[in-house]
């Protein structure tokens, strides 16, 4: 081949020329993401206009904000003196900072206690929230946390929570101990426990039936005497023919079951914790306190307020409602019609009424259902109602998780010879709960937001503080933007944090690799 008439052949590659300006960098991005067609362009312009208006409106308000004033009038005077047209009075946040966070009655020198309790809460929640990274033994700290937090927030003697914790541990030990007894000793114990339980239960049921007789005797108007009369006799017959023998049979059943020992173990443990909590808790803790006083100033729960109250209600109610929700969900799945029926009615009832009516119940009705003169304080009644409320929602979430489990899991557990408790504890719940966690977190966020409703029943959470003592005070009359924005902000921080965690967890738990 000669190379006389060869057209030009390039031997080296030319360097790539830069893309045209419209196809690179910010312009390309803007073209693709902001102005890809005329609708998008219009939307973009509208959005930009909206943002600019918002920023233009809000910025001077924020920048001119007054942080140091004693009252709204002083604040406005400062703004007028400086010749500013708009400006926020953030001074209210400075002035009422403690009130917004802790309510107006929590002792000021004890603010460190709830603060510490909530810092510890984050620490204690870590092992549970990030269980895949934190060694399991740290969960012990999580278990100890409620006792410590109770002491820090409510004060009083440290020995009370310690003794309660000790009683719970001791009950576990009793349980183990009875389980490990040999058959003859256990039969002996079962006999004793059986007699005790028979007497106790028969008496208890007798009293319960008496109560029924009492109700039957009191209800009914003059025209309807026959119905109370029949009810009264039904209750009487139940008392003597049914309930008292029943107690005795239970006692016998405990004795009869000694060989397997399930009943005697449980009943002994129950008896143990009952005796410890009812009879020993008071004397032991006060005795210990006399020897080594470990006391903080006691704060009654009606002194709780501000954002702290929301956090307390949120944490307590969510933690209490998860086990309750699991039980309700299992009950709803149960094949026992009575238990299933009770659970369904409870769940549907609670989910059908607004939380505010339940809070009214806590506020004005629950007192009538409690023994006369027994004085539950309001926060406890509210905790009971909110816990019931959220447990119904959590039960539904968990039911979804249970339903999502393939049937084979249940059958496999059965074929391994596991009984219901074992199958539920070892096979079903771990999987169902894993599926339900994002849903539970959503319920928790919703519940935490709903704690603001307690302001409607004259409790001073952060919204209650704003609507009551702050807006009503001479100094800060009718101030609203600054305080409500602050309240919105503190809720946003926590709720957004939790929902981000939930999304992260959802990704972590997605083990099915779709």
């Amino acid at each position: 081949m000669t190379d006389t008439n060869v057209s030009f052949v390039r031997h080296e590659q030319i360097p790539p020329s830069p893309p045209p300006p419209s196809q690179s960098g910010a312009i390309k991005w803007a073209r693709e993401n902001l102005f890809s067609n005329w609708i998008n362009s219009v939307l973009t312009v509208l959005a930009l206009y909206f943002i600019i208006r918002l920023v233009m409106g809000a910025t001077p308000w924020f920048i001119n904000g007054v942080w140091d004033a004693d009252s709204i009038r002083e604040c406005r005077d400062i703004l007028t003196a400086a010749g500013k047209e708009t400006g926020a009075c953030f001074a209210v946040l400075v002035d009422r900072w403690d009130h917004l966070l802790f309510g107006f009655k929590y002792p000021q020198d004890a603010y460190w206690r709830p603060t510490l309790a909530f810092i510890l809460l984050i620490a204690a929640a870590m092992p549970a929230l990030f269980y895949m990274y934190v060694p399991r033994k740290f969960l012990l700290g999580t278990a100890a946390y409620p006792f410590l937090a109770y002491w820090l927030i409510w004060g009083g003697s440290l020995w009370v929570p310690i003794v309660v914790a000790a009683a719970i541990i001791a009950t576990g030990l009793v349980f183990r101990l009875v389980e490990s007894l040999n058959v003859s000793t256990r039969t002996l114990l079962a006999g004793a426990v059986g007699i005790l339980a028979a007497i106790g239960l028969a008496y208890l049921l007798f009293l319960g039936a008496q109560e029924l007789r009492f109700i039957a005797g009191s209800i009914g108007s003059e025209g309807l005497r026959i119905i109370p009369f029949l009810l009264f006799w039904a209750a009487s017959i139940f008392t003597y023919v049914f309930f008292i023998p029943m107690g005795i049979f239970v006692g016998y059943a405990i004795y009869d079951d000694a060989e397997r020992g399930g009943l005697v173990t449980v009943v002994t443990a129950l008896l143990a914790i009952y005796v410890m909590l009812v009879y020993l808790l008071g004397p032991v803790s006060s005795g210990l306190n006399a020897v080594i006083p470990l006391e903080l100033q006691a704060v009654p729960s009606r002194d709780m307020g501000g954002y702290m109250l929301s956090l307390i209600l949120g944490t307590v109610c969510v933690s209490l409602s998860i086990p309750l929700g699991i039980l309700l969900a299992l009950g709803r799945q149960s094949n026992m019609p009575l238990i299933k029926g009770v659970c369904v009615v409870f769940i549907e009832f609670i989910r059908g009424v607004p939380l505010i009516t339940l809070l009214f119940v806590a506020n004005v009705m629950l007192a009538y259902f409690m023994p006369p003169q027994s004085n539950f304080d309001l926060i406890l009644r509210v905790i009971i109602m909110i816990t019931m409320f959220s447990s119904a929602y959590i039960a539904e979430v968990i039911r979804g998780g249970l339903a999502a489990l393939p049937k084979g899991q249940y059958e496999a557990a059965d074929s391994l010879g596991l009984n219901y408790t074992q199958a539920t504890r070892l096979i079903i719940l771990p999987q169902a709960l894993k599926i339900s966690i994002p849903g539970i977190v959503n319920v928790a966020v919703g519940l935490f937001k709903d704690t603001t409703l307690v302001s409607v029943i004259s409790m001073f959470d952060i919204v209650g503080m704003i609507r009551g003592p702050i807006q009503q005070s001479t100094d800060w009359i009718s101030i609203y933007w600054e305080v409500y924005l602050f309240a919105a902000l503190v809720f946003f921080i926590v709720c957004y944090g939790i929902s981000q965690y939930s999304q992260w967890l959802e990704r972590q738990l997605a083990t099915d690799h779709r």
Partner: protein
Amino acid sequence: MTTLADQPISASGSSFKLSMLLNDTRYRSLTFQFIALVAIIAFMAFVGGNLVRNLAEAGLNISYAFLGEPAGYDINQRPIEYDSTSSHGRAAVVGLLNTLIVAFLACITATVFGVIAGVLRLSNNWIVSKIMSIYVEIFRNVPVLIWILIIFSVMINALPGPRDFRGEDATASMSFFDTFAFTNRGVFAPAPEFTNSFGSTAELPVTTTGMDWLLVIAALLLSWFVARAVANWATRTQEATGNRPTTWYITLAIWVVPVVAVLLFLGLTWNVPELKGFNFRGGMQLRGSLIALWFALSIYTGAFIAENVRAGILAISKGQTEAAGALGLRPNRIMSLVVLPQALRVIIPPLISQYLNITKNSSLAIAVGYMDVTGTLGGITLLQTGRAIETILLLMLFYLTVSLLISFFMNIFNNRMKLKER
């Protein structure tokens, strides 16, 4: 824990042991249920006994007679005839209707907000989708009570009062050719009035000139039936010939002509609000409390619905969109004909629970003084009569009924929308 009743002694003979009631799966569920029954009875006895005792001690009794007594207070928003001499029962019904009104309005607007935000959040316009996700996150993560209070406070303070419209140096003026007034007491708008009215049926919750409106509604229903027939005819023609006849002007005429005819026949005039004395008179008033509650519930729940909509759209596999694109459909037709109908099946169940939430959250009306059922029955009536137990039970019963009804009807709807699997 057992009873004689539980023991099939005769059946199983002497080999029966009491512990079998606990350990033998044949009897165990009976035993457990019996324990549960006793526990429930014991609980009822405890609660009921306390109630009876407490009531006796306070000298009270349970009686619903107060529902028939005169209420003695006035309600500003009255869908049915009511004045302070009406009974507590009627006040409760007024409140109930007010609850349903705000819940209904909020359900509609929340759905609109939610669908718009949910679709726009998936838009390829960066700035719009970012704004929408900020909207969703901000509204979802702050309690609805705070939103209601903020929106109400802003409305009260930012809008002019009626007295600002008055005088030579009025700082505010009416909008839309002096027909609408936006004040902090609410929006005053022109109201339709009929000069040849048929009279009124006061029991109708819609308006006091009920018969006239019934006529209008009848005309609209008629139009709807005819329009449907026309559409069916068009579809049949299309199926037979392949060409869809142009029907939009026919449909338009069918919708417009009868209504206009009826309205002309009734002698429609507009009653424009005017500033007289303390307030705007005439026209109709959407009260500030209703607007604030309505808007707050809509925008709050809209954020949740947006998430449901987004999840529903994302659940539709991309292949569907691509297939539709391959058929030559335009993007907006893909959305409305292919993606949304399928996404709807995913969206509807959570949507139902959002509607239920709106209904339940409307009980926060007391925060803005909107007289819903919690405000009348559970508020003023409770306070004036002191019948806490009765009113709260009635209140819960009402919400329970509404919730069950909504979920019942929405479930029927959901079942009809469901993919029929064969």
